[in-house]
């Protein structure tokens, strides 16, 4: 019954679970001052798990496993690798956080959430999908509100929880309607049901709207974006970085599989692609415009991440193989870039305790390397070569144009100029302005070893994606091929 393919299909999750148990066992035996080392264990373990899965768990032809509950293919595999990489980087960034670093349960929650995300990327059944979404979300609710006694963190956790529960309930209602109409929860069979017309188009559109609410919360596109700035600002910075990257990408993994596999019916897709296109346009406009007046770097990044959701959606709307590949590629570039940006914010606030963009004045003199990394992150977010963001944007725009959404691409083009304004404005503080006493030499920003490793790895990754883009793109493309 239990074949080697089935084993390989959940190999990463098995490894993460083992790692989690190891963390749980080891942590109480370490003394208080050494407990930070759990972070090394988590990051190293995740990296090893990536390596092992990459060597032993590569998918071949797409297959279903566990009673058609999960789909074992390249799309899911590539997403899993991305999540685990993001998880490892986040674990490193958590190590020197004053409230998270020495708490073993924080790392455990991170790992639990990762298992959920990995399963989100491969679920091919609505029930499985719902379970994995909850597995991914619940630990994140706790992590967001982890800083007990800190009002803003508590608010963030609570807000995230309420929004999350509300929206996933609505999505679950949509799922139950799907089952009621069609009698199946399997995504691949659903496609067939739509083809034979078991569900009336209007009902299907209504169901889709309900499901979009849940996904919209995960990826933070516009009508469901309200939680993002407050939660990012209040929650511990590494957690905010994780929320804005891996969690969002997991939402996209679900979105891709649902809309490319389960609801591909042409008459149906015409209505929802138009809806999503409008949502994409509004997300780009609102995200970029609201980012303009922000003074807090985490809020700025929150609004910019809403805008980036809009760009990614262009690829989904295109509904072509290039579109799907561009979404995956965009997410890969975006995960690295945004983690880098949040990592810098974390490294900076750890030394100074400050989060305002104004406080970054003189950063390039206080720490030239941190300044350069911030330059990398922000220019990549702007969409400048030779960084990942540029190629990602080009591919997404190309997909949009290929599918005939020229108006949407033009909105994307114009809003990314607005984006350039506030990203460059932040860099102005880093490079031009100085500290009040102009004594930057006396206020260096030392990077502890985990931060240095994480930030350098992310910077190199951003540059690699932006210059040698062939391997990344062919992986994204191989994943996209599984949707057709």
């Amino acid at each position, binding site marked *: 019954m239990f074949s080697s393919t089935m084993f390989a299909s959940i190999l990463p999750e098995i490894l993460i679970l083992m790692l989690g148990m190891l963390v749980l066992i080891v942590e109480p035996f370490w003394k208080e001052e050494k407990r930070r080392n759990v972070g090394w264990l988590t990051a190293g373990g995740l990296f090893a798990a990536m390596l092992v899965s990459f060597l032993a768990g590569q998918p071949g032809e797409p297959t279903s496993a566990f009673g058609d509950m999960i789909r074992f293919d390249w799309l899911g595999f590539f997403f899993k690798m991305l999540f685990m990489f993001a998880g490892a980087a986040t674990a490193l960034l958590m190590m020197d956080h004053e409230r998270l670093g020495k708490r073993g349960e924080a790392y455990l929650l991170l790992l639990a959430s990762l298992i959920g995300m990995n399963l989100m990327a491969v679920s091919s059944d609505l029930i499985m999908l719902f379970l994995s979404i909850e597995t991914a979300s619940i630990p994140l609710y706790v992590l967001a509100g982890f800083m007990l006694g800190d009002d803003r963190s508590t608010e963030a956790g609570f807000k995230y929880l309420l929004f999350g529960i509300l929206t996933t309930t609505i999505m679950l209602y949509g799922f139950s309607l799907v089952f009621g109409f069609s009698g199946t929860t399997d995504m691949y069979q659903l496609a067939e049901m739509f083809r034979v017309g078991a569900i009336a188009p209007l009902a299907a559109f209504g169901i889709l709207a309900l499901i979009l609410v849940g996904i919209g919360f995960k990826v933070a596109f516009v009508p469901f974006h309200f939680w993002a700035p407050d939660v990012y600002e209040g929650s511990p910075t590494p957690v905010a970085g994780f929320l804005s990257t891996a969690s969002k990408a997991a939402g996209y993994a679900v979105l891709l599989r649902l809309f490319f596999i389960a609801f591909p019916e042409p008459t149906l897709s015409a209505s929802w692609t138009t809806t999503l296109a409008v949502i994409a346009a509004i997300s780009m406009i609102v995200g970029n415009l609201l980012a303009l007046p922000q003074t807090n770097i985490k809020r700025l990044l929150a609004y910019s991440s809403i805008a980036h959701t809009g760009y990614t959606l262009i690829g989904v709307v295109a509904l072509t193989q290039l579109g799907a590949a561009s979404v995956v590629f965009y997410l890969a570039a975006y995960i690295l870039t945004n983690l880098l940006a949040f990592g810098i914010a974390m490294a900076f606030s750890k030394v100074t305790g400050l989060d305002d963009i104004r406080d970054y004045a003189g950063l390039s003199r206080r720490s030239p390397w941190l300044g350069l990394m911030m330059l990398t992150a922000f220019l990549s977010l702007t969409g400048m070569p030779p960084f990942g963001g540029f190629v990602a944007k080009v*591919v997404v725009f*190309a997909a949009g*144009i290929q599918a005939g959404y020229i108006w949407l691409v033009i909105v994307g083009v*114009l809003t990314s100029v607005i984006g350039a*304004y506030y990203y460059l404005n932040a860099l102005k503080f880093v490079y*031009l302005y100085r500290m009040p006493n102009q004594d930057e030499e006396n206020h260096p920003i030392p990077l502890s070893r985990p931060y240095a490793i994480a930030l350098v790895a992310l910077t190199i990754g951003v540059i690699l994606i932006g210059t040698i883009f062939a391997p990344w793109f062919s992986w994204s493309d191989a994943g996209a091929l599984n949707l057709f």
Partner: protein
Amino acid sequence: MTFPVLSIITFIPLAAALVLFVIPANRKNEARAVALASAISVLLLSLWVYFTYDQVGAGYQFTENYDWLPALGIGLRFGVDGMSAPLVLLTGVVMFTGVLISWGDDNPHVMAGIQDRPREFFAFLFILATGVLGVFVSLDLFMLIFFYDIAVFPMYLLIVIWGWSVTREYAAMKLTLYLLIGSIISLAGILVMFVAQYQNTGILSFDMLLMEKAGFSQAFQIVWFLPVFLGFAVLGGIWPLHNWSPDGHVAAPTAVSMFHAGVLMKLGAFAALRVGIMLLPEGAKYWQWLIMAFAAIAVVYGAYIAFVQKDFKYMVGFSSVSHMGLVMLGFSTLNEKGLLGSGLQMFSHGAMTALFFAVVGMIYDRAHTRQIPELGGMSKVMPFATVGFIIGGLVSMGMPLFSGFIAEFPIFMGVWQVHWFVAVVCSISIVITAAYIMRNIRQVFFGNMPEKFEGHIADITILDKVAISTLCIFMIVIGLYPKFMAPMVQTGVEYVLRLLGGS
């Protein structure tokens, strides 16, 4: 396999930038030496390319072709033709002279050049240079826009960090946003062309040589010519979109102004030619009148605004708008003489304006003012710079025996063939240019030196003199011996004309 000279030229500055970042921040002279060494090697290699270019064979030469992203038909395709080889040489010259000018002077009275963080300065400048060279040699549209954007963003940092403290923040942001809007609109146009080619021919490729044969419909070309051409022409300082350029020039430090006006504006004009006119020729014919009108306005209006400037650097900045207008005017003729003139004007203006900005920078570093009425008598203390500026002025006025004449005369002939009226109107600019150049030479270099400058102004350094002579040599050689460059540009022009069909 042949020696990949073009990719070496393109990536030398990038490699130098990476080396610079690992040099300790306080080793300023080492940083400068690395910069100079790489600038010299780029100059020598570009000279080698220039002189070994086979003018009889013409076409794209020194081609290199590496697959980069085969799934989307992106490749590192390099090659130069008669249009771009002079521009590669120009970039080499401006890099070399720019490094010399920025070397600095330890004399505490002067504080010329870049004294604050020269390591970062040269690193950013050279990243920019890689972008510039990459655009000139790219035969792949994706790579072209890739390098184009690399050339744009370091400008922001270079101006904002080392620029003139009064206007740098405003000017740098304005410049970057203008150029970004332009480049991203062109990018959208390029993607549309890419998709349209796929629909027409089934070829998924950014290769420009293939795209020349993509068979875009006339309606398509007419719709997309303007966004693509104007998007690039923003960087070329075309009239209604030129506003960023004088502000940017003035706010930038000397070497960056030289780069900016000398090379970067050519980048815009060159990309507008390569992508706009060569790939969408029907669109170019349709919109010819509009481009010509814009260019003519730039020529006359730029010259007039330069005439009324009190600030020396603004004057040079607006004169750049006027001269780049001539380049665009030559493009808009779409005939042999006009395009030939434009090709020569790009080189001639590049060298001339770099020289202007260098001299203006030298004066400002010593006198700490750029107000023309406050200056005077500079020829007594810096005779060498004076001679250099006069030569530049003669080029600017289009005097025979200098490169300006060789470049501007064909442009006017070409314009005359299309609309004699436009040629007459634009020739006014020659008179205005002569007026402001001569007036300023008299006021700044001759005239009486104000008392406050007596004894405070030091002569320029030997490095500055080398830089000035290098630039002057090219302008004089082209003027006296046009065969140095004209036949080569001619081969490039013939290629463009073939794409335009007929004539």
